[in-house]
């Protein structure tokens, strides 16, 4: 664990040391300029101090060469920072294909976590060591932000849409989770822990948890309970489109646009179905805004994502 007076954060994810490296690079550049200018200014102020009351400075107006030098060097350094930072950002943004999925919903003022196997927890997130974890984030109410300093990752949870974040933990232990986007009274109380475990400990933990069914199973149950199934059938006899294989496909809309089906499209289709009408269908699907919670929505999405080939029951929930 942390010492009681740390000056530098622990680095416990695969990305953390990369972020630190960039940090030290910019720190070096910044320190160089800070020292250069401060020393020069103080030195000049002493060296060229006024000796008698009527003294004036030398007649120097400027130098194009110097202006160029001190624009181009900072510019080049700034570009190095930009490209380095941009490259790093892509790596922070793009989860590996084999990442395991975890669903997290922010709500004033707690984090609700759902593992694909069905175990749920609040303000705690157990993850296995060394395995990429991809978190799909939603929000029930206002903006929140899921932040794990030891992993150097953070992402806003935005009401009305889903966002993603990923990491691979590289050290066992428990680390802070903070809500980093201001969200009201208990913003500073919306904190929790990520507990990184050896993979076999994690399996044991999962097995010991009270599972209320996997996310996919729950999604399937909801699909029946909410009567989605009355319109979305496995054959084309329903009033709504067949949802098998819809995830990842390209859908033609009535107004001529095309969209690729991703999590946010699925979300919108349930919460705001009139926004995008599939070509060839009537805008009759009711909105489930207010009926379906953000958590249930994530389960429905998890379920719809598995409706791929012939085995809609496959339990791994979105590998």
């Amino acid at each position: 664990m942390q010492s009681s007076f740390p000056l530098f954060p622990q680095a416990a994810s695969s990305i953390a040391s990369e972020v630190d490296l960039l940090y030290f690079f910019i720190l070096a550049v910044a320190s160089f300029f800070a020292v250069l200018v401060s020393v020069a200014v103080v030195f000049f102020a002493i060296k060229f101090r006024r000796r008698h009351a009527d003294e004036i400075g030398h007649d120097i107006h400027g130098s194009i060469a110097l202006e160029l030098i001190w624009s181009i060097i900072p510019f080049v350094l700034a570009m190095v920072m930009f490209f380095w930072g941009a490259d790093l950002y892509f790596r922070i943004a793009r989860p590996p294909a084999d990442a395991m999925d975890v669903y997290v919903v922010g709500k004033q003022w707690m984090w609700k976590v759902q593992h694909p196997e069905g175990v749920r927890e609040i303000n705690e997130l157990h993850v296995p060591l060394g395995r990429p974890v991809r978190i799909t984030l939603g929000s029930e109410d206002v903006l929140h932000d899921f932040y794990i300093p030891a992993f150097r990752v953070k992402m806003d949870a935005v009401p009305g849409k889903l966002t993603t974040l990923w990491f691979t933990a590289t050290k066992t232990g428990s680390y802070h989770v903070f809500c980093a986007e201001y969200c009201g009274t208990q913003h500073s109380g919306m904190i929790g822990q990520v507990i990184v475990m050896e993979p076999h400990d994690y399996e044991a933990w999962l097995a010991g948890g009270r599972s209320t069914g996997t996310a996919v199973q729950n999604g399937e149950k909801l699909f029946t309970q909410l009567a989605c199934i009355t319109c979305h059938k496995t054959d084309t006899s329903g009033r709504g489109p067949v949802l098998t294989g819809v995830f990842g496909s390209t859908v033609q809309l009535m107004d001529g646009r095309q969209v690729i089906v991703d999590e946010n499209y699925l979300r919108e289709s349930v919460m705001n179905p009139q926004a995008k009408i599939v070509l060839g269908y009537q805008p009759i699907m009711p909105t489930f805004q207010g009926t379906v919670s953000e958590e249930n929505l994530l389960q429905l999405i998890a379920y719809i994502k598995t409706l791929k080939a012939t085995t809609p029951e496959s339990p791994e929930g979105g590998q």
Partner: protein
Amino acid sequence: MSHISSKRLFYTIFVSLIILTGLTVFVARQDFGAMNTPVALAIAGLKATLVILYFMGVRYNTPLTKVVAASGFVWLIILFGMTMGDYLTRSWLGFPGR
């Protein structure tokens, strides 16, 4: 600024504006597909330009006034362009929220 336009000019501009209004209403009933909005905006832009140049007299004004008058619209383009630049490139990476 002390330029005084003829009444005739004003009447000409007025008639053009009325005709252009009729034209927008007319073209709104035609279907140009994706070009519907651009056509409507082009006509509105033309009308606005006539008002600015003649009724507001920018045509006869100093270059400074011309620059000032244009700058508002340039800044609008920055606002619209960069904001829509965000929305139009959403999800290109294929991960929600990126």
